[in-house]
């Protein structure tokens, strides 16, 4: 490892830590500014109608102690950091006494299982289409470009709603919501798995469709830019075969697309929010939606912290990988 490289990595790690601390502080402070006392609403829900003032007070004090709200702000922050590091994230307000880690643990796998394959499939198909469109420009530009531009302007939630209405409500090919039949208990039976697969289709294809649009447009313009680059012209003058040039061109055009893939995997939990709420898919997005609507800020904090940390890690890894694969970054950073 050269000296320049060491310096580069040190700088990156320094930034990673600083932004991580800023993210943790923001995640702690912002939800706590929410109006309305969470303890009030829990006590209101749980206490019997005939309770005396004293009993109410006692209950309030009990919950305040349980949630650590009787401590000062630094004590609360310490609790928050401690809970974040031991992985429990504290106790949920709206589903007391469930641990936040329990709520997130039961939903995050649905999100990952839905998003990861969908993002990868969408990325592959989108890049293929984009590269094809750049290579066979005349046909694509005339026939499909305006259409693609219009369809890529449809917002993600709009596309999801339209798919839902066409395929689930009107045609009845797929179930309307949930991840499996509500009457079933999760198990490894064939019946349960087929129900999961049936419920998987619509959210999956809606995410694939949306990411195809974005990736294809990006890949097309990157490829066109590369196809007009000087090295391509030079290679043509040298008489290098078209097939070989195309391979170089697309490899170079792929670089920014790799960034896109890494970032969309990093932000997948956040990206899932809207699609999951439309299909009522029980992933992390849905948990967060429920938490927002019930002012359950330990859950909101935990979700946003997970999203932030995933994005942080993705961009950190990208910086590291880029330093090795992109000679321009290498030249700029290591010297």
């Amino acid at each position, binding site marked *: 490892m050269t000296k320049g490289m060491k310096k580069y990595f040190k700088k990156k790690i320094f930034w990673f830590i600083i932004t991580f601390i800023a993210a943790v502080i923001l995640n702690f402070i912002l939800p706590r500014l929410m109006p309305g006392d969470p303890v009030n609403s829990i006590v209101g829900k749980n206490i019997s109608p005939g309770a005396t003032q004293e009993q109410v007070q006692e209950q309030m004090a009990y919950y305040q102690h349980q949630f650590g709200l009787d401590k000062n702000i630094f004590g609360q922050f310490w609790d928050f950091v401690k809970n974040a590091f031991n992985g429990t994230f504290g106790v949920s307000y709206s589903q007391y006494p469930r641990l936040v880690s329990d709520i997130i643990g039961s939903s995050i796998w649905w999100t990952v299982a839905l998003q990861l394959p969908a993002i990868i499939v969408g990325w592959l198909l989108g890049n293929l289409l984009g590269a094809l469109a750049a290579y066979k420009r005349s046909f694509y530009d005339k026939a499909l470009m305006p259409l693609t531009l219009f369809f890529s302007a449809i917002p993600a939630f709009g596309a999801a709603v339209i798919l839902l209405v066409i395929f689930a409500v009107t045609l009845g090919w797929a179930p309307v919501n949930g991840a499996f039949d509500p009457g079933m208990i999760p198990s490894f039976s064939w019946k349960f798995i087929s129900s999961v697969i049936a419920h998987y289709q619509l959210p999956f294809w809606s995410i694939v469709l949306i990411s195809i649009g974005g990736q294809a447009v990006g890949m097309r313009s990157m490829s066109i830019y590369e196809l007009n680059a000087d090295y391509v012209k030079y290679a043509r003058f040298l008489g290098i075969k078209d097939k070989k040039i195309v391979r170089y061109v697309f490899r170079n055009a792929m670089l920014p697309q790799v960034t896109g893939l890494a970032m969309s995997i990093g932000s997948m939990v956040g990206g899932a929010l809207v699609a999951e709420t439309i299909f009522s898919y029980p992933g992390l997005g849905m948990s967060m939606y429920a938490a927002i609507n019930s002012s359950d800020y330990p859950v909101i904090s935990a979700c946003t912290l997970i999203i932030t940390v995933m994005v942080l890690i993705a*961009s950190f890894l990208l910086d590291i990988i880029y330093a090795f694969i992109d000679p321009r970054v290498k030249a700029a950073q290591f010297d």
Partner: protein
Amino acid sequence: MKHTLRNVFHSPRFLVGFIIFMSILLTVLIYPWFVHRDPLQGLGKGFLEPGTYVSVYDTNNAGTYRVELPEANENRLESTIPVKDRQTMLDFLKAKGVDVSALDTSNEKFHELIEVWKENYDEADAKKNKYEGFSTQAKRNELRRLNNRLSEDTSAAMSVTKGEGDAATTTAVAGSDYVKVDEVANSINLPLGTDNFGRDTLTELVKATGISLLVGLIAGSIATALGLLVGLLAGYVGGILDDILMFIANIFTVIPGFVLLILIYSALGAESRGIVTCAVIIGITSWVWTARSVRSQVISLRNRDHVNLSKLSGHSLFRIVTTDILPYIASYVVMAFILQVSSGILAEAQLSMLGLGPNPNELPTLGLMMNWAKLFGAYTSSNAWWAYFPVILMIALISFSLNLMNTGLDQVFNPTLRD
């Protein structure tokens, strides 16, 4: 300047986008002159299908005219004989051995069905032969009643009583009596029906489009202005200021803007989220990308000869920035602004769909309309396409037009992209 503008308007993409955007904007501005309804006023209960609604009560008081439509009777039968009875007719014909393979219960085939029925049904015949499925007296009576309804003369089938007590007069209403819709005291045309609150969807949509455009415009202006300011300062002044500004920008880049928006919005609470507050928050969380690109462009401009010359001539910082640097990045800033407007509108819509939108009791936005459609089952149980589809289409049209303008500008200002 004049030349650039002419070039821009010669780009077909920009022109199409500009025309679409301007027609949306004009609709938003002109529509309230013609329809004075309050967009949040409930007109009825729940979803009403699109169409013209005429008061039944008031039709009695409007003048009657005699109009003879050739197919009036058939049309009336179509709306009064339900599918269930049509199926009974088909079943009877089938039992009698008539070939009914070309017929079904749809409105299109109903005329033919009546013809075949009239040829084949005879009360005495049905009584004598006791066809399969129609052998009981009750079934035969059902057929007879159905036949009476089909061959009934609908003129003078209804009578209406006007006035009270002794002064009441009863008049017969003939099948050929018509009222002129303009003369009915109360009628309303709802081209897009009503939403779950019974609000006129079209009026609401136009108002919501205006508000969403405003949100996008405010958010876009703030984001672009902040980004430009930060980018110029960091890029041109450099030094410690650059380090501090880029430190802040770095934090904003890595913490996803949407997460920040969710956190800030939920911290505010629904009551204190006005339209402007929402727009400002979207603006101050999305300036980072503009700032970064402006900064890198300014850095490459900083050491150009004309800037150095300006510096040697003793021009002020403000003058150098406005005359020697801004014109070079103006096209980029305009394009960034257009994209910021479009993403501001989308951000508002997404937040509203999560229940984090502006205060829903004040004004409608496109996102709030989507949220209401979702909460009140417009996609599923009510199947009210008019409550959400025009909204999606409107959002798509706005971002389509803005994207078109953006790519058009891109082609004009970046000649390498041109064909």
